[in-house]
């Protein structure tokens, strides 16, 4: 718990390191924000003085009223500047954080994300980051001002009469101290609130994406109940948080009011004894309230601190999370490696499992060779591909491309060598063309040719918007086979020397498959290819076959060899009636 004491301080420092580049804007902000906050105090003191003056029988001039009107106008102007400058800084920092988070998630995907919920990650990137806006737009400035202004005002009160200052100081100290008492509870509760809030997003996303199943299985009421629990848990956390906040508010209000009261009484005594004049008496009473304006501003924000700092923590946790795939010694390679793939005694286990997904797997794919990996469902075929793409890394053994250990190449460079059709085709929520290009600069002609080879050009051209047709969410506006063919097209377009096809024709009919296979035959000629499949028509394109069984290589050979000798091979291959 020792570490805990510095929790907030740690994040304040951490968060402030992000504003280094905005230092001059910060200074400007402090000046404007300072003036904005001093104006009401000055104007209150001024009017109080005048009231006292008049109360004791003096007179004032009309110019004074004009002065007050001018101050009122200044107040408007500086409230504008205060807000604009602080928000400009804050929103710039927010977008910086959002990009940092995106990069972190890119770095962590997919190995660290398989147990995380996208909804929660988005909640952090959108909502938690947004709470940091409070920190930058309001807290930082107000925090400094809440030190400067009270000190200035207390000095001023001291000038009126030291006793008055003495009457205020203890209260100020107590008020500042109050949030310290509740700090720990506030942080724990804040964390709970933020976490439950992100659940709402996650459960909504899950519910909407699984809408078809929920409706089809008439699971609506249960799901609503599930959602209700999530939503109420969040609100309960909120209520608990606010209850504690209420207690803080209770004490803060009492002590602020007590401070005013003690000034009222002290100065009354001073006045009765002729130590101060009525004008200054009035000023003292009004100022004793005004001191607390910035303090109570920071206090009302401090009731948010529990939330702000737990958001900061959630952001920071993602930013500093270590990726499962170690890239420490990895270098970026710009050259094209020789397309020789080698697995040497690779053993791998997914985190949290107690069975190895791959057991001592060794095989070599020579340059230009085509190999098929087959095996029953769950045997570890896809896992091989993902290890080769450096989405995961082996626990033991070595994987290399062109003789270079993957440990020494960074993931980005590894993936530049490889083109892939993955088993779970993912299309982004944009046009067909953008999905085929995926950010690269291919000419239209290249795209058409690739689509043609993937037997999808004809269909796309027949659509009213052609290649600009939006595919909808995750490609749901297309049929299963169409999605698959688009992903084949984009793999064909990527000029890489190694090709991984993971069940790339599982949703294709024979007619389309035949067309695609013909394209593949020409394409594969000069590429090293790893094909994962269950159907003969695809397997027969390969030179060699590897049979995986429970994560180990069970058999290896040509199609003919296996057809004649192996029983398990025949079982795995899709039966033909």
């Amino acid at each position: 718990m020792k570490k805990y004491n510095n929790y907030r301080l740690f994040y304040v420092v951490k968060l402030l390191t992000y504003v280094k580049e905005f230092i001059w804007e910060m200074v400007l902000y402090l000046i404007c924000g300072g003036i904005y906050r001093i104006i009401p105090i000055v104007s209150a003191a001024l009017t109080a003085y005048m009231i006292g003056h008049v109360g004791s029988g003096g007179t004032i001039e009309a110019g004074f009223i004009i002065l007050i009107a001018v101050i009122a106008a200044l107040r408007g102007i500086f409230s504008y500047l205060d807000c604009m400058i602080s928000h400009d800084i804050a929103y710039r920092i927010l977008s910086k954080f959002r990009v940092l988070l995106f990069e972190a998630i890119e770095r962590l995907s997919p190995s660290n994300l398989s147990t995380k919920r996208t909804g929660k990650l988005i909640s952090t990137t959108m909502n938690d980051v947004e709470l940091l806006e409070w920190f930058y737009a309001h807290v930082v400035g107000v925090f400094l001002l809440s030190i400067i202004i009270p000190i200035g005002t207390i000095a001023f009160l001291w000038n009126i009469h030291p006793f008055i200052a003495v009457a205020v100081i203890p209260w100020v100290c107590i008020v500042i101290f109050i949030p310290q008492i509740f700090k720990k509870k506030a942080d724990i509760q804040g964390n709970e609130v933020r976490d439950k809030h992100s659940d709402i997003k996650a459960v909504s996303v899950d519910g909407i994406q699984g809408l078809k199943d929920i409706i089809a299985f008439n699971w609506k009421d249960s799901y609503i109940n599930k959602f209700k629990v999530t939503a109420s848990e969040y609100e309960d956390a909120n209520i608990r948080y606010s209850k504690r906040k209420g207690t803080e508010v209770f004490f803060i209000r009492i002590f602020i009011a007590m401070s005013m009261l003690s000034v009222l009484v002290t100065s009354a005594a001073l006045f009765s004894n002729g130590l101060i004049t009525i004008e200054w008496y009035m000023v003292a009473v009004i100022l004793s309230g005004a001191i607390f304006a910035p303090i109570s501003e920071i206090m009302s924000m401090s009731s948010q601190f529990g939330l702000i700092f737990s958001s900061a923590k959630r952001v920071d946790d993602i930013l500093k999370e270590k990726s499962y795939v170690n890239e420490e010694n990895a270098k970026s390679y710009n050259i094209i490696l020789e397309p020789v793939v080698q697995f040497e005694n690779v053993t791998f286990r997914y985190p949290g499992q107690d069975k190895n997904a791959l057991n001592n797997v060794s095989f070599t794919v020579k340059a230009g060779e085509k190999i098929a990996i087959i095996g029953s469902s769950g045997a570890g075929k896809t896992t091989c591909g993902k290890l080769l793409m450096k989405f995961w890394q082996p626990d033991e053994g070595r994987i290399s491309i062109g003789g270079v250990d993957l440990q020494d190449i960074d993931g980005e460079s590894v993936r530049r060598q490889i083109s892939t059709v993955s088993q779970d085709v993912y299309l982004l929520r944009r046009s067909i063309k953008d999905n085929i290009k995926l950010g690269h600069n291919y000419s239209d002609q290249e795209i058409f040719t690739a689509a043609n080879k993937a037997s999808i050009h004809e269909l796309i051209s027949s659509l009213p918007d052609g290649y600009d047709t939006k595919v909808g969410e995750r490609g749901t506006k297309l049929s299963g086979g169409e999605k698959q063919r688009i992903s084949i097209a984009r793999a064909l377009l990527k000029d890489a020397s190694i090709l991984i096809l993971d069940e790339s024709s599982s949703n294709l009919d024979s007619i389309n498959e035949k067309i695609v296979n013909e394209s593949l035959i020409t394409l594969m000629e000069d590429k090293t290819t790893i094909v994962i499949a269950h159907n003969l028509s695809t397997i027969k394109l390969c030179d060699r076959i590897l049979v995986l069984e429970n994560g180990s290589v069970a058999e290896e050979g040509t199609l003919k060899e296996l057809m004649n000798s192996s029983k398990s091979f025949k079982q795995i291959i899709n039966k033909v009636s």
Partner: protein
Amino acid sequence: MLINFKILSLAIGSYKPIAKKTAIQFFIWCINAGHYLCIAFFLREILNGKIKQNTIFTYIGVIIFLIILNALLGKYDSYFDAKLGSLIKTDLRIKLFKKIFDIGPSYFNSGNTGHVSTIMSSYVEALAPYFSTYLPHLISTVLGSVILVTYLFYVNTLIGIVSLIGILGVLSLPNFWIKLMKERGNEDWKKYSDLSAHLLDVFQGMETIKSFNASSNIRQEVINKSLAIHKNTMEHLAVSQIESGFLQFSAAIGSSFAVALTAFLASNGTIESHRIFIILFLISSCFSPIFSLINTWHLGFRGVSASNFILKLLKVKEEMKIFTASKTKAIEKVQKIKMENVSFGYESKCVLKDVNLIFDRNKITAIVGKSGEGKSTLINLIMGFVTPWTGKIFINDCPIENLSEELYRSKISVVWQDPYMFYGTIMENILIGNPNASKEEVERAAKNAKIHDYIMSLPNGYNSFVGERGMTLSGGQKQRISLARCFLKDSPIIILDEPSSALDGKNESYVQDALKKISKDKIVLIVSHKSQTVSFADSIVVLKGGKVHSQGTHSELLNTNLLYCDLMKNQEEHSA
């Protein structure tokens, strides 16, 4: 002032607590005013100089009492604020979720998940303060101001007028601004939800993005979108803060300026000087809620702009409401599904034309056709996820829209081409088929789907988490869990869309055997490309060009139908 009836309708059911909150707020206002008045009276007596010890203590006593009362109310208010917010938000969220179910999947297929889930979380969150903070604050401030202004008028008309102008300024300026800001407020939210939806898409597709080394482009998109939020917010603030400046100015006129005027008039002798203390303190106490109203008005405005989107979502067409029957018309036994002249397409593109089909009980029917011929669409039609352009679909002889949805759903179970796993345990995912099933039943279903052994090999067995969308499972495992879900439901109609595309021959044979056992007395429909799957069906429907091209058994079609041969050919070659 920002009140309209459409927004109020979103908090239906919470009017009472809102009224209570307003009362609390007003009570706090009164206590504050009382507190400041006490101070004013106290000062006056001190100035008069002949105050007695006793009186001083009385004053201090009363003030302390008011302080404590105020603090206590503040504490309760803080709690009640959250409580009220919780009522409103939870109600609204549930209402919206129900609405989502009524809208159905097509609306979301075109890419609205990100937007709608943002509404569920952030928009609703932003709306609550409108009711729990802005509205009560507004009402109590208006009430308080009426009292204040009345008193000021009583003292001096000029001061009353100045103060009134200040207050009216604060209350009415927003009305002029709202027109200017409405567009920008909506734009703010649009940009926000745009980024949020974008993130959903790219986070879920990150593996693909990385595979194709596309992250730097996507990163640039994220930068652009978040800078757009920055730009939009600043533009919005540039306008709204001018307003805020005016509001501040207006409030300052109503307070400081009115006080200064009081002092001036008193020094002229126009006002009796003993009143000036009261005016000074009364105005200070009454204007501090007005200043904070200026702050809450921005909260309120954010809520109002959010409400536009919430209201819009509530108006989206409810495509799932095709089942009109209010009373359950029982179906004794499902004998057949009949499609009569069914035509359907998406947008303007026609996919199925005049389809006439009958699926009988006790029969496994396979549907084959090239990719994109409309097989999955046919299933969506039977499931009622889309409505035919023309034609009708019957269960026995009853059009499905004459059944109640509940009854209809209870008769059908389905495995989608792209099986979906919910975040949770394997057990939960299978139980969707039948939430009341016992453990044994679940295991039996899992055994039939040939996934039991795998599940048992996991450290936590049936209680293992599958990750979002089943990320910790292999393709074939997801399919088999989805099958288990379907088997568990044990409904009279079973629809399977490519249930074995990721299964190897061995697993598929097991599943087929199980299916054969289970399918007794049921209508089973299978869409597949694989001859192994198709050949075991009793009857096969071949789709072509949106029409039923032919129908028959495997051997019949092989002998007579060229298209069918083509569809199966590649696979057949090797049987020889």
